[in-house]
């Protein structure tokens, strides 16, 4: 039974380097233990993804497909209004979440928080459903809501896989494995090892550790063996690597790890050598699969990388001024305007009564009228802050203070804030669009200063943020804080002639975006005035402004 599979199970680690094999293994494990929640699959639609989804058959013969725009009725079931009206008695529709099996969520990157919340509730309530989230995110900042991805054990990125490079994969006997699962016994010290791993990689969610344990069991059940080092290695690599927020220092870690008297690894090996898995091996297994940007990036970027702040994804959709109702089907967001519906149905009553076989009002689905409200969209204030050496450090501190003040005041208006800083040779998004004061504080505390003034690069990045925000239904406003001495050109070279020219070129693209240029140099700068004129922006000279004055000026100018 064990040996009937091709040998890659026994050599599982090398193959884990291949994303496709990893995704396929994740699907097999999910088929063995649906309690693992699901798989977050990052891939564009295409033959590679199709090859993988073809394997969903192992999991569930007819997997249910979901898309993020599904209404609550479609999802959870409820009154089928059209059928009810046609038949004259109550007709309920069944929701797709009511049945066990695999749920394939297409276009998962567009999942609104509300939809994710329903899926999460379903995953929490039962162990019968498995969610395969197909994430086609292209731009940075898109992604599956963190609440959902936290509840899925696996995450694999297929974007670099070529169709020709897909290895031949075994077809394990899943039915047998499922039967064996209940008998798999985990070594007593496995929870400890997993807990230490989560600490080493800075993984906070306890779900990760539980998934690792489950995955190890499922993997052992697949191989028809008791849990060995291969199982644990594969399990931790699959469940922990994508959640890591820090990289343990491998060499030192290995020494300190074995030095303190944490007896289980060394001492218990006496009676049963099979159970003993060196911690360093597991760390290496996870480390081999860490996302590449983790290794060379600072940890602060990573918290956001697991999912964007779901709050920012929301479209401007709060209730507003009522508008005339219009025909349509009721969905989760819409309410039926009863009076308008009756008015629409009234003229037809005589004709319909002639053909209908039941008494009472004759209303058809086409008569339905929905309430509409005028939406107001959320505003996003993008701060482009000059963090270069020429902007004195004190001024930078005032700018930081102003951002925090604005955010603290912004509760009533529900503004979002985003911070782009430029210094040295390039610009970076220090704070993605957020309303969170906690996050702002942490990011701002880390804002470094010094170096050249790449004004053009800063403006370009800010403009890009503005475009992204517009796509998400927000209303962006740009606020530039600088003393205007641009000396780094767009391509990163120090060129005092070209730098202001580049800034002006980018400035032209800002027309149409409400922009405020704040000159915080000691003397007003002519080039900055010119930039403001070119980009149809407001210009404000505020030498020696403190945080409070700055924030007041901004909120006055932006209304």
């Amino acid at each position: 039974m064990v040996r009937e599979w091709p040998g890659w199970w026994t050599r599982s680690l090398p193959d884990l380097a291949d994303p496709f094999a990893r995704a396929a293994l994740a699907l097999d494990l999910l088929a063995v233990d649906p309690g693992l929640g699901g798989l977050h699959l990052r891939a564009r639609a295409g033959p590679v993804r199709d090859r993988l989804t073809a394997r969903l058959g192992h999991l569930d013969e007819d997997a249910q497909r979901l898309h993020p725009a599904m209404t609550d009725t479609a999802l959870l079931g409820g009154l089928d209004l059209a059928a009810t009206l046609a038949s004259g008695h109550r007709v309920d529709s069944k929701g797709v979440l009511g049945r066990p099996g695999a749920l394939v969520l297409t276009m998962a990157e567009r999942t609104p928080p509300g939809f994710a919340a329903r899926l999460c509730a379903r995953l929490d309530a039962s162990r019968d459903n498995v969610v395969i989230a197909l994430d086609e995110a292209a731009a940075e900042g898109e992604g599956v809501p963190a609440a959902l991805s936290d509840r899925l054990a696996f995450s694999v990125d297929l974007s670099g896989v070529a169709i020709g490079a897909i290895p031949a994969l075994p077809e394990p006997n899943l039915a047998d494995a499922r039967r064996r699962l209940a008998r798999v016994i985990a070594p007593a010290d496995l929870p400890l090892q997993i807990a230490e791993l989560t600490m080493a990689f800075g993984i906070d969610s306890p779900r990760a550790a539980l998934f690792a344990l489950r995955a190890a069991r499922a993997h052992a059940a697949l191989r028809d063996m008791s849990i060995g080092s291969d199982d644990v290695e594969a399990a931790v690599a699959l469940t922990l690597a994508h959640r890591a927020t820090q990289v343990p220092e491998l060499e030192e870690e290995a020494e300190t790890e074995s030095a303190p008297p944490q007896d289980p690894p060394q001492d218990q090996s006496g009676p049963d050598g099979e159970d003993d898995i060196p911690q360093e091996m597991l760390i290496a297994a996870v480390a081999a699969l860490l996302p590449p940007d983790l290794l060379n990036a600072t940890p602060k970027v990573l918290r956001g990388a697991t999912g964007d702040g779901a709050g920012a994804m929301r479209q401007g959709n709060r209730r507003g001024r009522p508008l005339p109702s219009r025909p349509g089907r009721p969905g989760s967001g819409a309410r039926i305007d009863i009076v308008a519906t009756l008015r629409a149905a009234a003229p037809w009553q005589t004709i319909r009564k002639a053909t209908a076989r039941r008494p009472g009002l004759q209303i058809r689905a086409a008569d339905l009228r929905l309430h509409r409200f005028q939406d107001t969209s959320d505003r996003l204030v993008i701060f482009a802050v000059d963090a270069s050496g020429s902007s004195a450090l004190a001024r930078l501190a005032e700018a930081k203070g102003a951002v925090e003040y604005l955010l603290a005041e912004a509760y009533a208006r529900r503004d979002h804030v985003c911070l782009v800083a430029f210094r040295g040779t390039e610009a970076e998004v220090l704070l993605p669009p957020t309303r969170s004061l906690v996050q702002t504080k942490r990011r701002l505390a880390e804002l470094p200063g010094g170096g050249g003034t790449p004004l053009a690069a800063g403006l370009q990045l800010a403009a890009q943020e503005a475009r992204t925000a517009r796509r998400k239904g927000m209303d962006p406003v740009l606020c530039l804080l600088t003393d205007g001495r641009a000396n780094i050109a767009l391509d990163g070279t120090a060129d005092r002639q070209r730098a202001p020219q580049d800034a002006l070129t980018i400035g032209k693209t800002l027309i149409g975006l409400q922009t405020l240029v704040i000159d915080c140099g000691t003397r007003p700068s002519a080039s900055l005035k010119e930039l403001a004129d070119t980009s149809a922006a407001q210009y404000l000279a505020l030498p020696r402004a403190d945080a409070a004055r700055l924030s007041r000026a901004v909120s006055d100018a932006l209304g």
Partner: protein
Amino acid sequence: MTHPFPFSAIVGQEDMKLAMILTAIDPSIGGVLAFGDRGTGKSTAVRALAALLPPVTKVDGCPVNSARPEDVPEWAGLKDYRLVEAPTPVVDLPLGVTEDRVTGALDIEKALTLGEKAFEPGLLARANRGYLYIDEVNLLEDHVVDLLLDVAQSGENVVEREGLSIRHPARFVLVGSGNPEEGELRPQLLDRFGLSVEVTSPRDVETRVEVIRRRDAYERDNSAFMLRWQAEDAAIRERIVAARRAIAEIEANDRVLTDVAEICLALGSDGLRGELTLLKAARAYAAWRDDTAITRTHIRGVSAMALRHRLRRDPLDEAGSGTRVARVVDEVLA
């Protein structure tokens, strides 16, 4: 159907567990807000607590879980008033829920097919006498949060729409959870929650291992695990029931009242909700600890959870609000 995770088996998170127990002893304290990391057992604790509480007696089929036949609203259209025992209701309020689903609305089906004006009760009706749990409350649309807090405060849901005019009791303990990194609640809303706790993932290996072990045991052998924790759960239930009886007898002398007022003054919390909640929480805490009068120990024990969310926000202060409360409490009670 598996049982909810046993309350007594939840590892750590003492603040959150205490806050929930206090609201179970005295629901008038108001809701609990649990802010913090994901996967730290916030929703588990709510469900576990509700499962642990003694069952409520209610009229069978009553949409608002009425205790007595005479309380059953007319619009429910019940014909027979049999009393049954039912577990304490826990209602989930999902994100993206419409106002109609929350408050209840005109029953569209009856209106359109039969031309009848009937009321279709919403989530607030179902949550009466129980718990209303909102995950990611910070992402909930503002008007829904406003509405919830209004109802939670008044204990009554008023529906005035589409020609309906209905009011029904809606007394529930509101439990909200969320991650502050994804957005915050407006201060006006924060203030309406009675208690607020911060939950963090355990930072030491031993606790994490214990979390993994228990959760794993729970999932692998549900009934054995429930049996193992039955006695502990029962002990907590007894204590809550006894505390509920004792709470009316617990005194608060003038010194305690002065302490409470001084703490709130020193912290500069707006309004009087802070004082009242602190006093109620301290009384419930005294009852929980089986003491007969409120002392400074009780005030110390609950001041952080009762007050931390009522402070004026100071964007430039790096210290957590819990620390600020603790500092002031130490100064006042010194």
